[in-house]
């Protein structure tokens, strides 16, 4: 755009004014130093049908700098690395806004990674509270994990976390390690919502518990670093019926559930040794699970097929002679049987609880849409009568660095 000198000068001045005027920021400015980054949110039931909300916010002043994060009781640290803000409200959002009466910063939920429900609240139904987590633009549904705790969230999120700066960080890091055990369920908020909204699928999620710290008695003598009396542990899964808590799955059942749901990324299985004495523990590397529904003479059958299981021999209590391939084949077979039993254990538990966490109904819906239309309203009654069988196939590909363990001389 050509123009004479004067117009250009005027435009320049206008541009300066516009830029200058907008430097102050806009209506929606959120400065990093004015935000309180919530890392974990816990919900508990409160009297009068209210909801109790706890938000864990790291204290930036104590973060960074070696040693400042030690928060064990009695350590010469006066400020905690985090603050747990608590409030009650008739809705989750109301409670969040109540927090603004105590929190010096605007609490910001985009970095939240844990949504923890107390067992008590889940027994009353969580649908009314979930809406907030589904609707909010701040919350990242994929980056949040859903957990249920049988304990008071106030205790849970205040258990000292010696290796991490804050308890929420500790839980996150344990979740990252899930593939070592597959002994607890990891379910993102997104997956949780998806299960709740899928026909013929009940939801489940991981469980976090407070435990007495077994390491404590041995270490009390160390004066300057007393071991906390409590510790936390993730183990098992919580099954839901609709939006209500139905019951817990044990660690073994949880691994079985994850096989059936094709969520296995690791784990371990211990089987009796083919040599006759002792046990063998196998480290699972991968495997696929599939659910095959069938209707035979009006009976509902489901075969859960676990294929492509690859494992590594991690430890044998008694020497195994792996120079003979048959030994390993026997072990393959034993592993497959044990996986089948895990799956059946999970199936039996879910049928006992009447919570279709395996998604058996969803499998029928996919394969028999016409028949499903008649079953779907009575599914809670039909589900416990479904005959569930499991079929697994496994191979042990690796045996570590030895072929045959040492034989101890008499």
């Amino acid at each position, binding site marked *: 755009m050509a123009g004479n000198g004067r117009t250009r000068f005027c435009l320049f001045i206008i541009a300066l004014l516009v830029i200058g005027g907008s430097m102050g920021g*806009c*209506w*929606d400015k959120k400065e990093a130093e004015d935000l309180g980054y919530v890392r974990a949110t816990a919900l508990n039931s409160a009297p009068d049908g209210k909801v109790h909300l706890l938000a864990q916010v790291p204290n930036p002043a104590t973060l960074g700098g070696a040693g400042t994060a030690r928060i064990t009781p009695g350590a010469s640290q006066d400020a905690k690395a985090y603050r747990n803000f608590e409030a009650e409200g008739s809705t989750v959002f109301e409670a969040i806004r109540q927090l603004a009466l105590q929190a010096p910063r605007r609490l910001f939920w*985009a970095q939240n990674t844990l949504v923890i429900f107390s067992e008590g609240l889940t027994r009353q139904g969580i649908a009314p509270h979930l809406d907030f987590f589904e609707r909010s*633009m701040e919350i*990242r*549904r*994929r*980056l949040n994990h859903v957990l249920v705790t049988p304990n008071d969230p106030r205790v849970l999120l205040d258990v000292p976390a010696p290796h991490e700066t804050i308890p929420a960080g500790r839980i996150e890091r344990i979740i*990252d390690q899930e593939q070592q055990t597959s002994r607890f369920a990891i379910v993102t908020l*997104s997956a949780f*919502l*998806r299960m709740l*909204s*899928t*026909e013929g699928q009940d939801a489940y999620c991981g469980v976090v518990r407070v435990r007495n710290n077994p390491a404590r008695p041995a270490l009390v003598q160390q004066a300057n670093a007393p071991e906390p009396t409590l510790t936390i542990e993730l183990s098992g899964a919580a099954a839901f019926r609709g939006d209500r808590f139905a019951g817990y799955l044990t660690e073994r059942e949880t691994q079985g559930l994850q096989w059936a749901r094709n969520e296995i990324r690791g784990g371990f299985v211990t089987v009796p040794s083919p040599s006759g004495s002792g046990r063998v523990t196998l480290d699972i590397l991968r495997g696929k699970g599939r659910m095959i529904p069938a209707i035979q003479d009006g009976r509902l059958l489901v075969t859960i097929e676990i294929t492509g299981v690859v494992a590594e021999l991690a430890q044998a209590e008694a020497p195994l002679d792996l120079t003979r391939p048959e030994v390993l084949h026997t072990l393959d077979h034993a592993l497959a049987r044990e996986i089948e039993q895990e799956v059946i254990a999970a199936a039996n538990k879910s049928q006992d609880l009447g919570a279709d966490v395996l998604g058996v109904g*969803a499998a029928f*819906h*996919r*394969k*028999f*849409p016409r028949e499903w239309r008649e079953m779907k309203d009575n599914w809670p009654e039909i589900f416990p009568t479904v005959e569930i069988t499991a079929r697994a196939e496994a191979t042990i590909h690796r045996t570590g660095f030895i072929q045959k363990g040492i034989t101890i001389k008499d």
Partner: protein
Amino acid sequence: MNYAISIVLATAILFVPSITAQHARQDAWLSLLLAGAFGALVTYIAVRLALRFPGETVVQYTPRVLGPVLGKLVGFIYVYYYLFVAYFVQREFSELINAAYLSRTPMIVIICVLTLLAVYVLYQGLEVLCRVNTVVLWSMIGAIFLIIMLGIKEVRLEAFLPILENGPGPVILGAVTPGSWFGETTVILMLMPFILATDQPRMVKFNLLAVLVLFLVLEMIVVAAVGQFGAAQAATKLFPTLSLARHVDIPALPIFSRQDAVFMAFWVAGMLFKLTTFFYAGTLGLAQWLNLKDYRPLILPLAVVITALSFQAWVDITELKSFSGEVFPFAISFVQFILTGLILGVAVIRGIRPQPGKGGEV
């Protein structure tokens, strides 16, 4: 070709996937197949009509085809249609920005920023628009492609079963909205005179190719949304594509998480482009309808008019969304399919040809 893709893409990816999923559930991908076929038909009709009068715009030749009174009326409907889509774009844009990022910023500010940019581009003319588009469009498709690829491991194929659970009805219903969106390529009726005479014969091929690319991109998004969220969740999302962008998480590569801002940057550019195109078509059309020599004096007044319209037309976002599923498709399909088909039909039957000396002129 670029042109036709981007004018549709930016708004289509906003609402369409969830509107389709609401009706067709897990069969949304089938709906898109139907919609793509319908879009191809509409595009073919529009390009044939445009090619019959290669030197003129639809506003110029309808009076000759349909008679002066009816022709002027239909011409005005076209002008209004272009402006209608333009202010629909303004509103969609500001609703998303307001809902997702700038909840306290007044909507007028957001609309003004976009509209002033569009006004600037209009003063600069069509060439600027096209050159910018070349960059914007392919970066946008690149961004979408990246989002889909990063989430591809999360797509569960069982989410698409059972196929045709409730018969073909819902699938057809789900096809209506995306089908009409594909038909927005009829903007070619205003742009044909500006395409080089040597390129014009290839426009049929180009535009059909554009519909194909559009179809593929939308299909990818719908498959990703239904596969990752499940049909039920995909249908309840207000902005499924943005949700997809926010859904990316690769634990080993946390750098790819929370990158929805990158996607938004390209989307905003795409929305600007779409607004500008339809605003341009509407402004030019009105100038020709009024027999003005230049369209530029109309730019600012019309910008004010469409901004005002974008405010008063819808009360809130739920109204906008149900409007874009239940009214908008039929309204624009009426122009794109029925009117365009009618003009072509009458022109063929009456044997009306371009006026001598105007054919193929740039």
